[in-house]
């Protein structure tokens, strides 16, 4: 019997359509009523860009003006990882080295691309200071490299202990937090970079975040994804 997932019953659909239509009209009206050429906070950001320590306004917003947001956002990532890990607690096998069927072509691809991805990630990180790029984009590329490796049968190297893994997952956040608190010793507020050291600290934080984000994304994938071989192996054991 074909498994299909059809829509809800007609009354639900009609009600949903009515609700959605209502919101659609509301939104459209609101958007079209917007005044043209509203500057928002852009001029303020422009004015303070010099003092932020970086040249790219988005990076300045993310790491300095609204660095607190970014810090909490990394916490969201860490939380999601913990959440995914908590779903696998009862499945201790998940973190054991997984050897997927090795395909020479795929393996060659991974071995070829992964280091290049690292280089490109580094570039994006560097570029973020003055151009589009930054920790998150760079971290995503690293994460993609990890996912590619994982899909190609490269399991977690044995020297990466569980603690090390946790450390690298939480590391970016802890480092950010550490810097945020650390700068308070210079007399400023939370996350108030002392004059002159803003750039250095932002770079430091971004670098650590990149590594951490990469690790988190890989962990999210590995911990939540369920390699068929692995599941079958466990099933055998349970029998």
């Amino acid at each position, binding site marked *: *019997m074909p498994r299909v997932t059809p829509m809800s019953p007609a009354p639900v659909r009609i009600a949903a359509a009515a609700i959605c239509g209502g919101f659609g009209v509301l939104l459209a009206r609101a958007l079209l009523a917007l005044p043209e050429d509203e500057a928002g*906070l852009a001029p303020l950001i422009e004015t303070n860009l010099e003092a932020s320590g970086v040249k790219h306004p988005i990076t300045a917003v993310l790491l300095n003006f609204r660095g607190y947001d970014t810090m909490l956002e990394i916490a969201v990532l860490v939380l999601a990882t913990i959440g995914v890990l908590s779903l*696998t607690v009862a499945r201790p096998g998940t973190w054991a080295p997984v050897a997927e069927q090795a395909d020479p072509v795929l393996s060659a691809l991974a071995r070829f691309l992964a280091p290049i991805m690292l280089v490109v990630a580094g570039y994006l990180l560097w570029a973020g200071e003055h151009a589009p790029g*930054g920790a998150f984009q760079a971290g995503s590329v690293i994460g993609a490299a990890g996912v590619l490796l994982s899909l190609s049968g490269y399991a977690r190297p044995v020297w990466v202990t569980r603690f090390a893994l946790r450390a690298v997952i939480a590391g970016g956040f802890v480092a950010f937090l550490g810097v945020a608190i650390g700068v308070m010793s210079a007399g400023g507020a939370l996350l108030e970079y002392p004059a002159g050291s803003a750039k250095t600290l932002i770079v430091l934080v971004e670098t650590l975040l990149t590594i951490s984000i990469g690790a988190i994304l890989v962990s*999210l994938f590995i911990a939540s994804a369920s390699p068929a071989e692995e599941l079958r192996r466990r099933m055998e054991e349970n029998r």
Partner: protein
Amino acid sequence: MTTFAGLSQTDLYALAGAALFVIGLYGLITRPHLLHKVLALNISSGGVFLVLVGIARRVPGPVPDPLPHAMVLTGIVVTVSSTAFALALAKSIYTETGHAVLEPDDLEETGEVSRG
């Protein structure tokens, strides 16, 4: 800013964002399968981001307002996190119950009940 039929490019994308948001909302309500629900939420958030970036374009001059961009970047991270977690949750549910719907009633509709 060039306009076309009274619309600017900004309006076009912002309206598209609104449409995506609403489409996602509709899908979220009407599609029983969890994967569809997750996709629906992702589409909705894409819509919200489009609205935000559309708003950022309203700044006079070629360079858009960086603040909404930063907000969208933060939002994307949040969306990725929640998508990953929601998918892990959905898969756990599937493993645990044999299907990926919230209401057992939906099973008949999905035809999953018939499975041995």
